C-alpha cells in the first residue's frame, strides 16, 4: 500500500496544481527531494505492537489507510475509505513540523462522496497515539482500546459514517518481515497490514441512513524515500477472496512502459508469502473516461504460483478522488478462479 503516498508524490512532481488544497500537494512535492536527516527503513527492523501502531515522526512519511467492502441492509454494495497521512516538513520529529492530511470516501455503484482535511501538528488538531489507540484529524477519528478493535468515523458536508472494525486475524507484515522493496534500486518502506477486519455500522447518506456490514483492510506504512524518478504511477489492489485468503498486489509503472510488481499472498490464517517482481501480473481489461482521464476500471490479475486468475472490476467506474492530489480509489468485485471483493487504487493518470 506504500504505493499510495509514493504515487501522490509522483503525481505532483512537475505538475503545478491550481486549486485550494494545493498546499499539501506542494508539500508532498517538496518531500520528493531528499531524505537527509530522516530515518530510513531497515530490513532488520521487526515490528513491536502496539508501539508501531503509533506514529514514527523520525520518518518523513507515514499513513494509516483503511478500506472496507460493505453490504447494506438494503442489499446494495458499498465501500468506504479512511486515510490519515503524516508528512514531516523538517527532520527531528517535532510535532509542529508534522503536516497531516486525511481523505475519506463512501462509494456505491452510482455514488462516490469524498472529503479531504488538512492540519498541522503540535496543536492537538491531528495526531496518533498507540495506547489506547487513537488516530484523528479534526472530528475524523479511528479509536479503540487497540488497533485490533476500533471505531471509525468521518463525514463530509452531506454524508457521514460510523463503523466498528474488529480484527479476527493477526497483523500481517508485508514484504520481507515488513521491509517492502519498491524498485530494483532498493527503495523501500516499513509495511504491515490488518486484512481481517469484520465491520459493522451505519452510513449516513444524502438519501438516508443505511446499516452495513462487511470486511475491512488496514495498511500501515512509513518511509522517508521517494520513488525512483522514472516511476510514473501506480495500480494497486487489496482483495478479500472467498475462502478467507487475501491478496495484495501492485504494479509500479515506469515511463518506458515497463513495470515493477510487488505482492503478498496471505492465507486465511494470516501467513504471508511475498510475491517477487513479475510473479503477479496486472493487465487492464476495460477503460473508462473518469474526470476527463482515460482510466482502467477492470483488471485481469494473475498469480500463477497460487492458482489465481481473476478479473477485478470497479463497483462504480467514477470513484475519482478529487483531492489536492487526485487519484482513483474505489471498491472492486472479483470473479474468475476466485470470487470476492476488494479495493483498487490507481494514480498517475493525468
Amino acid at each position, binding site marked *: 500500500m506504500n504505493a499510495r503516498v509514493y504515487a501522490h508524490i509522483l503525481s505532483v512532481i512537475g505538475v503545478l496544481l491550481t486549486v485550494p488544497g*494545493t*498546499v499539501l500537494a506542494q508539500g508532498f512535492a517538496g518531500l520528493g527531494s531528499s531524505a537527509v536527516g530522516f530515518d530510513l527503513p531497515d530490513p532488520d527492523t521487526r515490528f513491536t505492537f502496539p508501539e508501531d501502531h503509533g506514529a514514527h515522526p523520525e520518518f518523513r512519511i507515514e499513513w494509516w489507510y483503511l478500506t472496507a467492502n460493505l453490504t447494506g441492509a438494503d442489499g446494495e454494495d458499498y465501500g468506504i475509505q479512511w486515510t490519515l497521512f503524516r508528512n514531516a516538513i523538517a527532520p527531528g520529529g517535532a510535532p509542529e513540523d508534522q503536516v497531516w492530511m486525511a481523505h475519506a470516501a463512501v462509494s456505491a455503484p452510482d455514488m462516490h462522496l469524498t472529503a479531504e482535511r*488538512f492540519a498541522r501538528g503540535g496543536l492537538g488538531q491531528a495526531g496518533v497515539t498507540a495506547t489506547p489507540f487513537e488516530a484523528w484529524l479534526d472530528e475524523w477519528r479511528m479509536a479503540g482500546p487497540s488497533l485490533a478493535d476500533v471505531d471509525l468515523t468521518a463525514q463530509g458536508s452531506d454524508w457521514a459514517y460510523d463503523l466498528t472494525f474488529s480484527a479476527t486475524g493477526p497483523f500481517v507484515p508485508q514484504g520481507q518481515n515488513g521491509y517492502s522493496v519498491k524498485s530494483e534500486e532498493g527503495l523501500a518502506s516499513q509495511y504491515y497490514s490488518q486484512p481481517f477486519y469484520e465491520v459493522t455500522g451505519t452510513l449516513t447518506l444524502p438519501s438516508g441512513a443505511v446499516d452495513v456490514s462487511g470486511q475491512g483492510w488496514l495498511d500501515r506504512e512509513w518511509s522517508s524515500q521517494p520513488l525512483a524518478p522514472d516511476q510514473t504511477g501506480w495500480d494497486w489492489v487489496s482483495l478479500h477472496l472467498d475462502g478467507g485468503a487475501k491478496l495484495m498486489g501492485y504494479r509500479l509503472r515506469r515511463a518506458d512502459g515497463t513495470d515493477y510488481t510487488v505482492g503478498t499472498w496471505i492465507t486465511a490464517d494470516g501467513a504471508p508469502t511475498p510475491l517477487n517482481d513479475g510473479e503477479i501480473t496486472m493487465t487492464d481489461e476495460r477503460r473508462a473516461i473518469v474526470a476527463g482521464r482515460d482510466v482502467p476500471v477492470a483488471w485481469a490479475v494473475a498469480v500463477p504460483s497460487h492458482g489465481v486468475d481473476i478479473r477485478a472490476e470497479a463497483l462504480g467506474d467514477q470513484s475519482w478522488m478529487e483531492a489536492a492530489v487526485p487519484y482513483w480509489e474505489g471498491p472492486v468485485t472479483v470473479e474468475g478462479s476466485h470470487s470476492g471483493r476488494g479495493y483498487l487504487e490507481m494514480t498517475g493518470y493525468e
Partner: protein
Amino acid sequence: MTWPVLQALLGHWRRHPFQMVTLILGLALATALWSGVQAINAEARASYDRAASAIGGGQADELISPDGPIPLATYAALRRAGWRVSPVVEGWVDGPGGRVRLIGIDPLSAPPGTPAAMAAVGIEGGILSFIGPQGALLATPATAERLEGGSRPVRAVEGLAPGLAFADLPNALALLDRQDVDRLVIHPDQPLRQSPLTEVAPGLERARPATADDLGRLTDSFHLNLTAFGLLSFAVGLFIVNGAVGLAFEQRRPMFRTLRALGVSSGRLVATVVAELLVFALVAGLIGVALGYLIAAALLPDVAATLRGLYGAAVEGTLTLSPVWWLSGLAIAVAGTALAAVTSLWGVARLTPLASARPRAWARANRQTMLAQLAAALLALMIALGAGVAGHGLLSGFILLGGLLIAAALALPAALTGLLALAGRQRGTALREWFWADTRQQVPGLSLALMALLLALAANIGVGTMVQSFRDTFTGWLDQRLASELYVTAETEAQAAEMLDWLDGRTDAVLPIWDTEGEVLGAPAEIYGVVDHPTYRDNWPLLDAVPDVWDRIGAGQGALVNEQLARREGLAPGDPLPMPGGWTTEVTGIYSDYGNPLGQVILPNGVLIERYPDVDRLNFGLRIDPARVDEITAGLEDEVGLPPDNMVDQAALKAFSLDVFERTFAVTGALNVLTLAVAGVAILTSLLTLANMRLPQLAPVWALGVTRDWLARIELLRSVILAALTFVLAIPVGLVLAWVLLAVINVEAFGWRLPMHLYPLDWLWLGLLSAAAAGLAGLWPARRLASRPPSDLIRVFSNER
C-alpha cells in the same frame, strides 16, 4: 445615397470647426470626469476587497471572543467537534522601514480561495517557503520593501492586500510573542454533524468579519462624494453637448430641408444624423476615457492618502484598469450624446420639406413649462425632506442632498424670471425696459446652462464651506489636543526608564501616552491611559462630561470615550461601558476626536496598567518650556541615546496633521475647479447657440437706432447679470448643502458633527469668478454680433427665401 447625405452633413463641421471642438470637448470632459471618478472608486474598492478577503475570502463569518484572545486549545477542541474553522492572529511588527500590520494564517485550514494561502503556494519554492521555521513573510512589493532586512525572509507578491504582511501561524505567533489567536474564520462548507458551539466553546461568538463591508461602509461617504461629483460633472458636460448639438442642428435646418426636398427620406436622414453623432460620441468617448485615466492617475495618490488618513483604509496608489471600465466609459459617452441630442433628433425626424428654413428661436417663456418645473422642484424638495426627516444612514443623507440640488436647479428658471420681472418693473428708458424683458425672455433658452452653473456654484460653496469649517475646527482642536511640547517614543522599556531618570527635574511634567487595542462594544477600539494633570484639565476637548470628570479620573474612576464611539453606541455620561476582559466602567466624558476612524476609550492610567498589564509603555508627552525643546531633544539623543526619529515636537506634529488634512481635501478641491470649468463651457456653448437665433429679436432694436456695438455690450452685460443672479441664488443652496454635509453626512460617515462657519470672502471670489466666466463666455458671441455685417440684420426683415 447615405454617403452623399453624410458628406453633406459633415460639411457643416468643416465650416464650423470650433463647434465640433466644443461638442467633442464637452462630451470628452463629461466622460473624463465620470470615468476618472469611477476608476478611482473601482481601485479603492478593489483594495478593500483585497484587504477583506485577505482572510476568509471576505465572506466567511468568524468566531471571536469578547474576553480577548482565543487559546489554541479552543481551536483544536472546535476542530475536533466538527467545526471547520481556521485561526488568525494579528499584530504589529517593526520592520526596518517602519511598522507593518502582520497577519498570521494557517494555510492548511484556511477556507478555499484565501488569497494569502494561494499566494503561499504560488511563490517560488511553493508552500514550503511559507510554512515551517524558515517560512517567509508575504507582502505586496511596497510593503515587502519596508520589511526587507528584518529577521525573517520576505517575499513580494502582487495582488495581496496593501499594507499587510502575512506569515504562517506559528511564525506569526513567534514574531508577536503570542500563544493565542484573535479569531477563527468559519469555513463556508461545514460538515454534516457538529457539536453546538455553546458546548464546545461557550465563550465564543459568531460574528460577521470586519471586512470590505465595514471598510466600504466607513468609506462610502467618500466614494459617494466622488461619485456625486462625477455625476455632477457629467450632467454639466451634457449641458455643453446639448448646447453644441442644438446649435449644429439649428444651423443645419436649411440643409436638412434641402436634403428632404431632394428626396432623402426622413428615416434615412435621422439614421445618418445618428451615425454622425455616434462617430462623435465614440471619438469623444475615447478621448474622455483617456483623459479620465489621466485624472484618476493624478488624483489617486491623494485619494489613497485621504482614505488612509481618514479611515485607515489602505489603498494602492497605482491604477489598474479593466476593459469593462473602458467600455463603460464609451457607453456612457454614447448614452450621454443620445440624451443630449434626443430633442434635436426629434425635430429632424418631424422636419418636412416645406418647413421653414429659418432658425427657430428656442422655446419661448412658457408659463406652463415653468409651472411644471416648479411642481417637479417641489416634489424633489419633498422627497429630500422626507429622506432627511424619516431616513437615517448615509444613503438617505445623499438623497436629501441630491433632492435639494435638483429642487434648486428646477426652481431656478422661475426664480430668475421672478427676479428679472422685479427688476423690469422699475420705470426707465425704453432700452432699459427692453433689456429686462428680453433677458427674461432668454431665460428658458439659457436655463439648462444656468442650471449647470447653479449646481456647480452651489456644490462649490457647500463643499468649500464644509472643508473650511472642518479645517478651522480641526486646527483649533489640534491646538487643544497637542498640548505637550515634545512627544517621545523610547525603543525599549529599559530605555524608557533611563529617559525618565534623565528627564527628572528637566521638565514640568512627563505624561505617559500608553495604549493598547481591544474590542469595545463589538468593534476594534484604542484604549489609552491618562494621568490627572492640568494639561488635560485645561486643554482636552470635552464635548460633554459629568461635572467632576477630571477629579474622578484622578481618583481612578470612569472612562472618557471619543465622539465616534459615543454616537455609534448612543453613549452619554453616566452610562456603563463594558470593557475587554469582562469588566465594566462608566462613561464620564465624551471628547471630539477628528480624523480617527476607530472608537477610543481613555482610562485613568493606573486602571489601564492594572487591567491590561501588557500595554505598550514607550510613548510620553513632555511639558517643557518651548524654548528648551531643542536642548531637551539634543540631551535625549546624546545622553539617553534616543534616535532623533523618535522625538517629534508639537509644531512638526501639527504640520504633519494639517498636511494630512490638506491632502485629504485636495481631491475635493480639484474636482470643484473642474466642475466649475465645465459649467463655464456650458454657458459659452449655450450663448453661441442663442446668438444666431436671436438675430430676429435684435434686428428690430438695431433698426430703431441702437448700434451693433451697443447691442454687443448689452448682450455681454446680460450674460454677466444672469450669471450674477444665478450666483446669488446659489449661495443659500450652497449653505444648505454645507449644513447637510456637516450635520448629516459627516455624522453618518465619520461619527462626528462639525460646527458650521461662514466664509463670505470666499463667496465674493467665487461670485467674481463666475461673473468673469460668464463675461468671457459672452465676449465672443458679443464680438461676433458687433462685427456682423448690417446686411445680416437687414435680411431678417426680408421675406423668407
